[in-house]
């Protein structure tokens, strides 16, 4: 009986199929996933707009991101992600505003009249005005939303018209919040739109035999810059990024990459597939969390590009820097029980590294919006008896805490403070605490954050009477 119905779920037994306890090697049991959430069950999932503008296009440094919606959708997607960007552009110029993507959001702030009479006129004006305000922006990305989806505004047509009028790309992303079952749908829509509308429309200033494209790497808290350092030092050239610290132009010439590396395989394999299919550019799924995966993947790239020695130099240098410290942290952390609840793939990225390299005991893994392929990887990478949850809700989190008594939870901001209330340390694994978390130094940062969270003296002070 690998599935498990939580106590709190007795009234919603359909949840049983979403929660699985790993048992021997039974490969057949499928976890129910990527399905509609039970209404009112206190899900942690978001919507397609979050997946599109929030996760992907919000990381691009030089575009005007315009949300066509009542004010809320724009408000909520304004500068909330930890997506720093540098103003350097691939043409050698400097974008006039630092962290433009974090600083400015644009929106149509639709009012009742617009809903009744349609919002396209306001959208056009907003596009023109935005462009006037920041004429140096490389492109304008327009997201449609629940409201504009439902009232039937033809955002594609407006964007097409505006592209011609302004002489720069104005791109429509049709991401009404109700599309699909989670933010995952927004990823897919955005992948498709970027591919359909942009990829192949520009050529890079120059190409080399070592050009790669980092796909699904959003530069959370500087992750991308860590990888960029390793890859550049071993001789590769980052031709495009999708989409952390990326410029608009880079997306347009992703087809010129020699190899695409897919970092977040949930949100961005789509575009890698499409590019491979249309342009024949191969891709590799890569994993740079932890020192071992980092070693492996850098070596793989070394082999692929004939840069084996260069890869070893990079590995020796950066792995060497963290080895001793990680050893110390492993000693401190051994046996501590951890529950990983990521948005998507971090639950399978991190399970083995945390166990092998930090001695932690992964007792449960979960994801908001993974698909079956992701759950298969999760299953493969956890030990017997580990609980795997799809789209767990707040009440399940609480039951898991009280039943399984983890020492630490890796989750998002919504779960973090809930865990705290039950006396359990929690780290924000979506946006990190003191990241970056990728690569060698990133894994050390993660180890430090884990150590500091578990060992924060405050947890020993909970009880007045025990003093």
């Amino acid at each position, binding site marked *: 009986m690998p599935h498990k119905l939580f106590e709190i779920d007795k*009234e*919603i037994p359909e949840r049983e199929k979403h929660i699985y306890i790993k048992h021997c090697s039974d490969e057949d049991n499928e976890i129910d996933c990527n399905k509609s959430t039970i209404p009112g069950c206190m899900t942690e999932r978001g919507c*397609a707009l979050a997946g599109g503008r929030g996760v992907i296009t919000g990381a691009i440094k030089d575009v005007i991101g315009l949300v066509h919606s009542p*004010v809320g959708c724009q408000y*909520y997607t304004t500068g909330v992600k930890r997506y720093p960007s540098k103003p350097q552009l691939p043409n050698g110029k400097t974008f006039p505003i630092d962290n433009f993507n974090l600083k400015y959001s644009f929106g149509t*702030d639709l009012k009742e009249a617009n*809903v009744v009479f349609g919002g396209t006129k306001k959208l056009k004006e907003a596009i023109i005005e935005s462009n006037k305000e920041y004429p140096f922006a490389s492109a304008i990305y327009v997201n449609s939303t*629940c409201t504009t989806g439902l009232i039937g505004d033809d955002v594609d047509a407006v964007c097409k018209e505006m592209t011609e009028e302004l002489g720069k790309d104005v791109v429509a992303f049709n991401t009404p919040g109700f599309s699909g079952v989670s933010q995952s749908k927004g990823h897919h829509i955005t992948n498709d739109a970027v591919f359909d509308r942009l990829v192949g429309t520009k050529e890079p200033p120059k190409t080399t035999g070592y050009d790669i494209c980092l796909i699904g790497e959003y530069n959370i808290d500087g992750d991308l810059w860590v990888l960029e350092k390793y890859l550049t030092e071993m001789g590769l050239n980052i031709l495009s990024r999708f989409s952390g610290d990326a410029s608009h132009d880079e997306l347009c010439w992703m087809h010129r990459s020699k190899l695409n590396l897919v970092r977040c395989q949930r949100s961005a394999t789509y575009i890698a597939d499409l590019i491979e299919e249309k342009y024949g550019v191969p891709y590799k799924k890569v994993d740079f969390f932890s020192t071992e995966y980092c070693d492996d993947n850098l070596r793989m790239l070394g082999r692929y590009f004939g840069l084996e020695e260069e890869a070893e130099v990079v590995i020796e240098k950066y792995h060497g820097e963290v080895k001793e410290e990680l050893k110390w942290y492993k000693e401190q952390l051994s046996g501590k029980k951890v529950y990983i609840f990521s948005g998507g793939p971090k639950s399978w990225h991190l399970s083995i590294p945390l166990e092998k390299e930090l001695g932690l005991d992964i007792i449960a893994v979960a994801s908001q919006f993974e698909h079956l392929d992701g759950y298969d990887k999760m299953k493969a990478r956890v030990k017997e008896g580990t609980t795997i949850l799809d789209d767990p809700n707040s009440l399940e989190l609480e039951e898991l805490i009280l039943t399984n008594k983890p020492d630490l939870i890796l989750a998002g901001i*919504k779960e973090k*403070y809930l865990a705290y209330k039950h006396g359990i340390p929690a780290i924000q694994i979506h946006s990190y605490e003191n990241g970056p978390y990728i690569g060698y130094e990133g894994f050390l940062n993660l180890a430090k954050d884990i150590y500091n969270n578990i060992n924060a003296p405050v947890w020993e002070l909970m009880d007045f009477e025990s003093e």
Partner: protein
Amino acid sequence: MSVNVYKRDRQVTIDPLVTCMPLGAMWAVLGINHGVPLVQGSQGCSTFARYHLARHFREPIEIAVSSFHESTAVFGGKKNLNISLKTLIQRQNPELIGVITTCSSEIIGDDVYGFVDSNKQELKELGYDNTEIIPINTPSFAGSHFAGYDNAIDALIKNLATPNENIEDDNNINIIPGLLNPGDVNEIKHMLDSMFVPYTMLTDISETFDSPLNPKKQGTPYFGKGGTTVNDIKNISASKGTISIAKYAKTGAETLKQTHKVPAVTDNLPPIGIKGTDEFLKTVNKLSGYDIIDTLMTERGLTLDLMADVSARYLAGRKVVIFGDPTLVTGLTSLVIELGMEVVMVTTGSEEKTFPTDIESISKNQSIDVFSEGDLKVVEDYVKDKDNGVELILGSSEARFINYDTGIPLVRFGFPVYDRVGYHSQPIVGYRGAKRVVEMVTNEVLAKYYEEKHWKLQQ
């Protein structure tokens, strides 16, 4: 002197200062003891709001959603609501569910009133009749979160306040706080407690948004500590009066006046600064008949003492921009003027009809630029225009990059403040809140404008 009212000359909103209606309704419902907001809409409508509330309060924010998908757009949201209510009640057994509509549910024409009515019947038959279910209309495009809050408070009062025939006449005062932080609500409670005035806070987020950490006493499913009980709201119809702190949240008070003849005071200055707090206490005194006791006058005197120490010496004439919640901006404008500073520009992000005249009435001999329905870009352009000589910004964390780019100090208040800690739990209202604001303002001025001539700080 006068105010100069400007309207934003753009259609596009660049970095909005407000969000849409549902958030205000969630805020109101989360002020109910064991209250759960249920968003009738897409998952983003709850998740984004939870995220934003969580990063400000650093607390768990439990908001349910009926998870609209494509099919809902076609078949309507009735089924979603049915399942949601049942799931919520079965699993969490809340005292109250606020059914909060969204742009989606409103556009597709969901009849939430009808849905709720039929649901109540169904649930009753299933034996679940302990939970109040209150439909709250908050079509996102119809206003800001301030309006959403107003609708929610009004809906709670309309649906819960029972005729006062069976309720003994009492000395209760109702307070509709508006979107105040826990620290502010606590300060209002402190003032009322000091006067021994019984009150009902409509609603009370002071503990639900700022709950103590005490795992041993933490039950499941999680509910924040405190909040106004459903029963308290049921009994408000025999109150001595209702004070709405925020003008944008006066509808509930008016409803209560119309339906139950409870006097309503809805047009005062908020209790921010000396005059505002004076006015508030006098109103409480007038409505309740309870005396304003000496400890409050001591607090007043301590604040005045600090104001005397710093206003002429460090603050006089310094130019200030204030943006945010219209009530807070109005109150802080009054306080900042009481400090002898010069308020050069204010904006609220939402369109509040009386805001310009409110500002004018407290502007004294100052000429203030009022931007109606501004956004952060309006603030940024104003502050970065050197001709305006802005020396201090009062606003939310939204202005962090303006501060970062210009070095002009930002004194944080209101919502959201997420890049510093503790702000939500400290007051700006009342005499003690005023004192805190004066301290913050002065210390920012000292650090920025006096530190470079450090000898001036030696005495």
